[in-house]
């Protein structure tokens, strides 16, 4: 694979996808210090919101330690070169949330839908464009559809006004060939001026390999997360990916040692503080990737398993079998109650 001189725009997720691992409890100081360090390290884009995007703070997904507005206001004024993005899922976040984010100085709005439901993105993408945001359409759980179907959905988002389209491996299920096929289909079928992005999860430890496959097939933006902090087994570990890009001579614009130091000095200690915040490939996160389950279901399944005396792996496999999609966290307790009822009663 030759990526010599290839331009890559890196987008860090540890302060948004990493919120899942931290149960949305990152402090304002932690968020600011990590964002400032990423800025210093040359990372061009940093995502900041509740793990489930703007308006995600809820019983269903977990309340954030602070509001999205407080996080954005705590971070954005301190950044020199890095731009901030905010994620939103239509059906959870509202247009008012997008206006608030833009008022706080957000540069990029990423509008996320399930990979077959792009046509619920019209209002959100429309207003993002109107407000002057760098507007991204983010097609989640992209392993569940063929490259052709993914392209058809991407075109809906492009028609709505998105200027970058993401293939999002929310379950960490894809293998490099799956990524190649999808990114190539998007690159061939979308307008030449539309950029392509890839967002990986490391549940099958494919984060790096999949991101490289995406670049080779024509992606420009790649999501990663310092120390991999993200839902499930985390995202593509950004410091590892930068090292690999460096070896391959790609044009990523980041300072490798500084990115390593953010991971080691600031993010790893956050994860070390509580056993439940450890982000790694273990039998549960591996099951997400193996069974094609939305990565942020991990901690919910573990808690439900503990509360109702079940195995978390059984819950995750059943969630995969039922073809659940991102946002259906409420299904997990409901399913656990059903599974507990069916379990043979001990005498």
């Amino acid at each position, binding site marked *: 694979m030759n990526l010599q001189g290839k331009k890559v725009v890196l987008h860090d997720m540890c302060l948004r996808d990493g919120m899942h691992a931290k149960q949305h409890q990152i402090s304002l100081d932690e968020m600011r210090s990590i964002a400032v360090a990423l800025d210093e390290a040359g990372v061009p884009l940093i995502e900041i919101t509740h793990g489930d995007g703007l308006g995600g703070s809820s019983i*269903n997904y977990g309340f954030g330690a602070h509001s999205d507005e407080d996080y954005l206001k705590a971070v954005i004024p301190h950044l020199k070169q890095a731009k901030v993005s905010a994620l939103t899922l239509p*059906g959870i976040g*509202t*247009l008012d949330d997008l206006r608030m984010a833009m008022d706080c100085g957000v540069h990029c709005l990423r509008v996320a839908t399930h990979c077959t*439901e792009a046509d619920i993105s019209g209002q959100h993408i429309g207003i993002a464009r109107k407000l002057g945001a760098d507007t991204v359409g983010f097609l989640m759980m992209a392993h569940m559809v063929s490259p052709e179907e993914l392209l058809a959905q991407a075109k809906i988002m492009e028609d709505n006004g998105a200027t970058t389209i993401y293939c999002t491996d929310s379950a960490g299920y894809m293998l490099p060939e799956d990524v190649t096929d999808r990114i190539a289909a998007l690159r061939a079928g979308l307008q030449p001026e539309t950029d392509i992005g890839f967002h990986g999860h490391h549940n099958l430890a494919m984060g790096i390999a999949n991101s490289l496959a995406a670049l080779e097939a024509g992606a420009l933006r790649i999501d990663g997360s310092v120390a991999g902090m993200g839902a499930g087994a985390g995202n593509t570990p950004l410091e590892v990916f930068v090292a690999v890009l460096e070896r391959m001579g790609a044009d990523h614009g980041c300072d490798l040692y500084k990115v390593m130091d953010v991971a080691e000095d600031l993010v790893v200690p956050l994860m070390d503080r509580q056993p439940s915040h450890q982000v790694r490939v273990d039998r549960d996160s591996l099951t997400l990737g193996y069974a094609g389950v939305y990565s942020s279901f991990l901690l919910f399944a573990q808690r439900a398993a503990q509360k109702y005396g079940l195995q978390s792996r059984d819950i995750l496999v059943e969630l995969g079998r*039922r073809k659940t999609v*991102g946002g259906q966290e*409420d299904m997990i*307790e409901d399913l656990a*109650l059903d599974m507990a009822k069916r379990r043979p009663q001990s005498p």
Partner: protein
Amino acid sequence: MTRLKAAIIGSGNIGTDLLYKALRSEWVEPVWMVGIDPDSEGLARARELGLKTTHEGVAGLVPHAAADGLQLAFDATSAYVHQANHDALAPFGVKMIDLTPAAIGPYCIPPVNLEAAVASGESNINMVSCGGQATIPMVAAVHRVQPVEYGEIVATVASRSIGPGTRNNIDEFTRTTRAGIEAVGGAKVGKAIIVINPAEPPIMMRDTIHCVVAERPDEAAIRASVKAMIEDVQTYVPGYLLKNGPVFEPLADGRWRISTFLEVQGLGDYLPTYAGNLDIMTAAALRCGELIAQGAKA
């Protein structure tokens, strides 16, 4: 007995399902179906069922409103055009039942406030949203036992049951449902989430209702209230079923979470039974129209 003459505006999924239900009504007689596409399947079906139709929108209905004695209209179009539809028909004394999330009139969730909404004499009554019809009764069931400080609902619906109207109005769905949780459900603060699932075969509509209360919940009273409310809804949506809960759980801040998990199976009048979200909306709207009709005859 003469029934109250009604128009259905919108010949899509919701309008067509409502038409089938209205044809069985003892109180409401659907006479007009209004669409905007001459090739609409919904309009063709309505003609076969004996209705007059127009594909020129409400403008095509207005010249006939007085002559045909229209007294009731159900608007199943979109939030953007609802105000114009209302304004066009109001001069003829037509009472409007709004199935869009436009919400220019008071909200109506039948088992909670049907009589009050109809008795208000308003010319426009809003049916909130499908998610609101399915979940707000549960918020109200808790609230009538103990004040609900925060009510949050998650409605998960089959992709096939959601037409372009809802897809293009997703923001109105979340905002209107939230407002209904507060105004009709009684929660001090509301939040609404909708998730669309494309699985095949399509999933039944699922709803989760979380209520937060300040004091330790009176579990027996809440269980009884939830059961009674479910039976009330079942009088017009027989497939409204409690799947799990109520679950009572203390929160870290000393308050309590009460969670109820429902499944809503439709009657299958037009779309298959999984589209409980359509069924509960059209059944609630028709029930509202029938109460208006009963009042008009009394």
